[in-house]
């Protein structure tokens, strides 16, 4: 704090009269950073500023707010819990490292989606995901006819997941974000760095390929 005052005084001293001496964005953030108890009520942008001012606990709140979405994206790409949780953690660590590069042009959720998708696409490029069997995914125990129906339903889900895993990367990313995260085409475009038209074309081809793959698998 003392160093900041010295800095402001130094600038004020050498600035010609009539100049406004503006306190830098970061110093403003530090003074506006919510106190510990109010961090929970702070919006994402304020939390980012608090992180940049050295308050790591603000990032814990960002994690708590967005962990479900980040994990679910990773799970949809990887198809198993272990890889999904590892990649979700990796996505958050990368986000933390790159926090100063977050310019706030998009929502932090969109930015985290972008990082997660990139982390997943990089991983599936070097390692074929191992799809989790459905009994490991916590299917409820059901009896009799209902058990048969549940088994059939799980088998159908497994077929769909396997087919989605075979889609080209951009088509898979588009389909996951659109169908499972229900993001608008515009936000998907921002996440994937495409135009809205390209996103819709990718989605069209993803569905057309999915249709073919499901037909092949019966």
């Amino acid at each position: 704090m003392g160093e900041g005052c010295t800095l402001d005084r130094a600038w004020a001293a050498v600035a010609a009269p009539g100049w406004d001496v503006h306190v830098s964005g970061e110093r403003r953030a530090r003074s506006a950073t919510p106190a510990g108890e109010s961090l929970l009520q702070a919006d994402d942008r304020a939390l980012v500023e608090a992180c940049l001012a050295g308050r790591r606990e603000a990032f814990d709140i960002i994690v708590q707010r967005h962990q479900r979405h980040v994990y679910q994206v990773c799970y949809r790409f990887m198809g198993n819990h272990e890889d999904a949780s590892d990649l979700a953690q990796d996505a958050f660590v990368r986000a933390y490292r790159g926090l100063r590069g977050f310019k706030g042009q998009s929502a932090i959720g969109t930015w985290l989606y972008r990082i997660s998708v990139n982390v997943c696409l990089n991983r599936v490029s070097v390692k074929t995901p191992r799809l989790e069997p459905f009994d490991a995914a916590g299917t409820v125990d059901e009896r009799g006819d209902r058990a048969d129906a549940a088994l059939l339903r799980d088998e159908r889900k497994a077929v769909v997941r396997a087919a989605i895993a075979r889609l080209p990367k951009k088509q898979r990313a588009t389909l996951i974000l659109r169908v499972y995260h229900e993001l608008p085409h515009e936000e998907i475009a921002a996440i994937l760095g495409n135009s809205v038209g390209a996103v819709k074309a990718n989605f069209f081809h993803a569905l057309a390929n999915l249709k073919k793959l499901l037909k092949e698998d019966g």
Partner: protein
Amino acid sequence: MRHFSEAEFVDLIEGRLPAIRAEHADECDECRALADALGAARSRASADEGHEPSPLFWDHFAARVGQAVREEPVPASEPSSWRAWLRDPASAWAAAASVAMLMLVAVAWRATLHAPAPPTSSVSTPDTREAARNSASVVIDDVEADTAWAVVRTAVEGVTWEDVHRAGIAPRPGSAERVALELNADERAELRRLLDEEIKRTGA
């Protein structure tokens, strides 16, 4: 009859295609069949509600991420920017010195323009150097009344440091230190006086 484009198929199965255009599906068996197939594939995909881990997982996960993040250095706001660079008090003083130096150079330059031509002599005596210094100090006192300086001041009145930063203008690291080292004793004394005066004025 124009068939649906890829984007229009997507809009159609999501119910966003304008009704007047969607009517094409009633007239075209080919487009209708493809739209139905795409819609069915979408429905089949969306029937998978996904995987929900144990409720205990989230606390464990957040703790894991928190631990991993605490092993990372705190991200600086803009480590390569002038704002982060100025956080160091030594850099701040050096930057202040460079600004003062720039002002002195500007004033001296203007003094050279306005001052009467010096007597033709190739020898610089202590007297002539003293006279030149006095001449410059007169201009320093007069700078506030200088119309050219007022124009510059007016032009930058609405410019904030953030604007300057966004425009990509930033001192090269080390440049302020170099300028500070090049200040002569008088200039350093003047800078010190200005800074002391401001510190007293603000009462800090």
